[in-house]
């Protein structure tokens, strides 16, 4: 028998060699003594406040949905480190392309909260974005934002602007053709994009293991010739650090980065009838709740004497007031008009649309 020239078993093992970056332990302690966060005390407090804001918003949004005051809602609790800390690494001039669960990032990037509520309720005014707000509304079609992010990123490159397009999808999203096309296009053009995969373990009910034979989602970057990294998505400091480094890498002309955050949503997929008990166990829920991103960040800040229970209670009240004001505002919005819808369908309105505008305007005037 001649020499064996290829060992597929070994090659298969090699594909899966990806480590998970963790910086803050579940006890709120920095794991590597040689590493310190590159954030001031004020910034650390601000990061935690945004996470707390997101958790409070999630609790309130769930209630508002049950009361019929809010429409479509995809719960976010559990994903605060993944969502907020990644967004925290970005600048106002960066362009965000969120998915439907990524409303917290959109608001922290500059969307007034009442507009997010309007989007949830199904009112066009929620999607009327000021010219200097660099974002798209949450994407419903899984993965579509990935190919668009490649285009936005190439736009930055062609304009010579040092900013990134950053976009989110979930573990299920990485099975879409658009996921591969998006990271591949951005790689081919060396465009400044940061692709974030929030792996919360389930695409509605289908577990991560059924999506792919790949052990990590980060390794999908390899085939596109771009760096991929897996990070503890319950660890805000790790998510921030990795995202910030990815942004710096991308704006300096090195092309895109793929980040996989390991996270968990405590609630259902959406509030539209999903029951996670059909596909998840209590043991799995408990396993992840012990890793709660707020708990460990709070412990970290309290140990540094940067946060207290009193501060937290006061801040949560402020957030509740902000939410109440925003929801009151959307309940008094003018009714939407079909004539306006028609006018928005094209910028240069064709004759058949104009005729319909006149028909609906007459109807609406009655």
């Amino acid at each position, binding site marked *: 028998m001649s020499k064996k020239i290829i060992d597929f078993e070994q090659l298969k093992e090699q594909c899966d060699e990806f480590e998970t970056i963790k910086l803050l332990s579940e006890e709120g302690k920095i794991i590597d003594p040689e590493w310190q966060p590159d954030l001031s005390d004020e910034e650390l407090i601000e990061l935690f406040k945004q996470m707390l804001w997101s958790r409070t918003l999630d609790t309130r949004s769930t209630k508002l949905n049950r009361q019929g005051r809010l429409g479509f809602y995809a719960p976010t609790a559990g994903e605060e480190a993944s969502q907020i800390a990644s967004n925290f690494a970005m600048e106002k001039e960066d362009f965000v392309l969120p998915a439907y669960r990524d409303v917290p990032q959109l608001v922290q990037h500059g969307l007034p909260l009442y507009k997010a509520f309007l989007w949830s309720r199904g009112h066009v005014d929620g999607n*009327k974005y000021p010219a200097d707000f660099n974002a798209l509304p949450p994407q419903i079609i899984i993965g579509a934002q990935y*190919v668009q992010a490649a285009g936005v990123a190439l736009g930055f490159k062609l304009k010579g602007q040092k900013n990134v397009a950053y976009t989110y999808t979930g573990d299920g999203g990485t099975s879409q053709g658009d996921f591969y096309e998006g990271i591949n296009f951005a790689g081919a053009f060396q465009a400044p994009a940061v692709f974030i995969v929030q792996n919360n373990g389930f695409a509605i009910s289908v577990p991560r293991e059924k999506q792919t034979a790949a052990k990590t989602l980060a390794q999908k970057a390899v085939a596109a010739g771009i760096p991929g990294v897996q990070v503890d998505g319950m660890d805000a400091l790790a998510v921030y650090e990795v995202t910030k480094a990815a942004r710096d890498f991308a704006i300096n002309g090195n092309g895109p980065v793929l980040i996989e955050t390991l996270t968990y949503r405590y609630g259902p997929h959406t509030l539209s009838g999903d029951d996670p008990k059909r596909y998840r166990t209590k043991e799995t829920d408990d396993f992840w709740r012990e890793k709660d991103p707020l708990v460990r960040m709070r412990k970290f800040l309290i140990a540094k004497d940067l946060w207290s229970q009193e501060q937290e209670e006061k801040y949560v009240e402020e957030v509740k007031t902000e939410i109440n004001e925003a929801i009151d505002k959307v309940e008094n919005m003018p009714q939407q008009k079909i004539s306006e819808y028609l006018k928005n*369908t094209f910028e240069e309105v064709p004759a058949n649309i104009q005729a319909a505008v006149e028909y609906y305007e007459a109807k609406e005037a009655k």
Partner: protein
Amino acid sequence: MAKKTMIKAITEALDEELARDEKVLVFGEDVGKNGGVFRATEGLHEKYGNERVFDTPLAESGIGGLAAGLALQGFRVVPEIQFFGFVYEAMDEIAGHISRMHFRLGGTRKMPVTIRAPFGGGVHTPELHADSLEGLVAQMPGLRVVIPSNPYDAKGLLISAIRSNDPVVFLEHMKLYRSFKEEVPEGAYTVPLDKAQVALEGTDISIISYGAMVRESLKAAQKLAKQGIKAEVVDLRTVSPIDEETILASVKKTGRVVIVQEAQKQAGVGAQVAASIAEKGILYLEAPIGRIAAPNTPYPFSEAESAWLPNKQDIIDKVKENINF
């Protein structure tokens, strides 16, 4: 003025707009150094450089997403889908996103995207190259669908499409690319979108068509004229939304109509034209609406094309049937 092919007219339109507006970008599979598989972008990569005219990886949805993202960044983009039969791969970006963007953002963002693609039968291509899929995109609100029938219109319509702040699907019939030449002026000029054109005036019957079937209709009209039937030929040019005013004016004048399309009969542009006439002009008619279209099968194996595609004789026969009704 010089006589030019339609493909040359299209290259000139792209060249004019690239020169006029530095925000114009042209991209797609093989459009760069190779100048496109039909040479529509011949010489443009060399002239405008790789940042303005460039090759993309081979993925139509990626091309659609790139177009949407670049348009959001303020560029005026002209992506090419190499053959329109490949559009299914890009359908989500075109129908789900590009066509809806202006509406979805409440009018706060523009989508100046002109998606060019060759299509059409009679040139013996492999599967899914020749299909007439304009009916699919014609159903998308927010999208204009333009199909020129000659070199002059191709240049002027493409310039109008590129300058439009709304998305346009611009379909170029492959059989028209090089089959004849026509006077095409130097420099930029526009032919209006949303406007049909009376390609030939007549009084006895209206033949309403678009794309390569306008040529067949004109040939049929010539032959009919020799037999004493004066047919009017209307070229839709923009097939969605259709120009009802021109259609109805012609039908009112002639009292008879035959609608001709290369696409399969079901649920397409011809059906929309027929519906508009039925809705707004039925009392002008002295005979039922006549329709010429391809049969409702998938596009045929190429050796059967000539039997499958509608032709001049089909039009002549249908016109006579209508006149003798």
